[in-house]
Each structure stands twice: as structure tokens, then as C-alpha cells.
């Protein structure tokens, strides 16, 4: 009963159990981190603003996106997915979310970034509600840990307004 095989089996079983425990503790240690991320978006220009032939409003704009998400990274963080969404209210829907830009941050070194871009995905409303519309730009992020549960949070930046006329 006490052969090399039995000892190896007992060792491997105990080793894997401890590994699972270590991973659980690593996941729990993320709670000690209290992140203080910051984000700032500047709308530089409305490139064009038009009504599509099917009647939906579409906007193209140029933005300056800057953010410091370094504090989201702990030793248990694999990567962070981040996206910028335009959020506004229309009579039909209480919340419209349109993703304008997104990115994957692979490491802490890349978590403080600054990007000058036009919207990566098309900003189209389901209707004709965008003229003079006030909207929020919200920076959403999903933290993907090496072990444990994914978490998500956001920063809401209010006070943006679209022009009254198509251009």
C-alpha cells in the first residue's frame, strides 16, 4: 500500500488542493486594493451629423480620451477591457448606450493612456432624437483577474451636448 505510486498520488492531490487554496487567497487579496481611476474625454469636433436615408440620426466626432486606470491593476489582474459609451435618454428608451470606442489594456504600464480618435464604432440613434441631445460619456471597464471573479465599474462624465442642426 505504500508504493511510489501511492505516495506520488497523495502528494499531487495535496499539492493541487493547496494550489486551489492559494488561488482563492490571491483572489481574496484583490479586495485589499481600493482603486482610484480617473478618466477624461474632450469632444474636439463634430465631423458630421446627419439623418440617414432610413431616418436614423448619425454622428461622427473626434475625441481626446485620457484615462489613468493603473490603480485597477493588482498582482492578480490579467487584463482590463475598457470601453467608452455615449448614454442618453429618449422618450422611447430610458437608457440608450452606444459604444464609441473600446480597448484592451494588457498591463499596468499601458493603463495610463491618452488617445486622439474619432469614434471607432458608429454613433447611430434608433430614431431622430440626437439633435440638441444632452448625453453622458461613460467609461466602462471590466477587470479580468488571473483567478477569481470578473468585476466591472464605470466613470460617468456628464454634460455633453450635440448640435441643434445637422451638418
Amino acid at each position, binding site marked *: 500500500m*505504500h508504493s*511510489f505510486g501511492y*505516495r*506520488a498520488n497523495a*502528494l499531487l492531490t495535496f*499539492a493541487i488542493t*493547496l494550489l486551489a487554496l*492559494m488561488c482563492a487567497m*490571491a483572489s481574496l487579496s484583490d479586495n485589499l486594493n481600493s482603486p482610484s481611476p480617473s478618466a477624461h474625454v474632450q469632444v474636439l469636433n463634430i465631423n458630421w451629423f446627419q439623418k440617414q436615408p432610413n431616418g436614423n440620426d448619425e454622428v461622427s466626432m473626434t475625441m481626446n480620451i485620457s484615462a489613468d486606470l493603473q490603480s485597477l491593476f493588482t*498582482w492578480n489582474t490579467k487584463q482590463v477591457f475598457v470601453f467608452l459609451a455615449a448614454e442618453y435618454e429618449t422618450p422611447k428608451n430610458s437608457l440608450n448606450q452606444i459604444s464609441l470606442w473600446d480597448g484592451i489594456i494588457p498591463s499596468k504600464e499601458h493603463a495610463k493612456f491618452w488617445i486622439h480618435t474619432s469614434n471607432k464604432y458608429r454613433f447611430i440613434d434608433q430614431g431622430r432624437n440626437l439633435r440638441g441631445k444632452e448625453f453622458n460619456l461613460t467609461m466602462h471597464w471590466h477587470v479580468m483577474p488571473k483567478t477569481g471573479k470578473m468585476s466591472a465599474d464605470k466613470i460617468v462624465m456628464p454634460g455633453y451636448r450635440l448640435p441643434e442642426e445637422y451638418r
Partner: protein
Amino acid sequence: MDWQGQKLAEQLMQILLLAFAVVAFATGYFMASFQMMIITYFGGVALTTLVTGPNWPFYNRHPLKWLDPSEVEKHPKPQPSASSTSKKKPVKK
């Protein structure tokens, strides 16, 4: 591996693994590197396998002392032809 050796191997395995788990977690946490934790731990597991896997000589320092074969002749097996009472009690001579 003798009985004492088995006990020693089992205890060594558990203590070493637990110690390496603690060390690896601390290393990973303070170096802020998950990879470092994994490397340290698997190094420890490999070392523990080396220590407690093979049947090293120091697990055989308490060999079982078997009775001398001459003792068997002094205490022969009860014969099947013997009565039922003699089966229950060891044969005395």
C-alpha cells in the same frame, strides 16, 4: 520503506507542501507577480516529490524484526485433525 518511514514520508510531504505554499504566496504577493508564485510553488512541489517519492535509505532505519525461523518449529500450526477446542486456543507446549 518501513512503518516509521511511511509516517515520516507522509508528514514530510504535508509539512513541506504547506511551507512551500505559504512561501510561494508570500513571494508572489510581495513581488506582485502571480507567475513568481506559480514558479516558486511548483519548484517546491518538485522538491517535495524528490524528497518523499523515492524510497530513500533514511526511511528504512527501523526495520521490522521478524521472529527467527526456529520459533516456528517451537509453535507448530494446529492440525486440521485436532479437536475444535484446540483451534481456538494457541497450542501450548
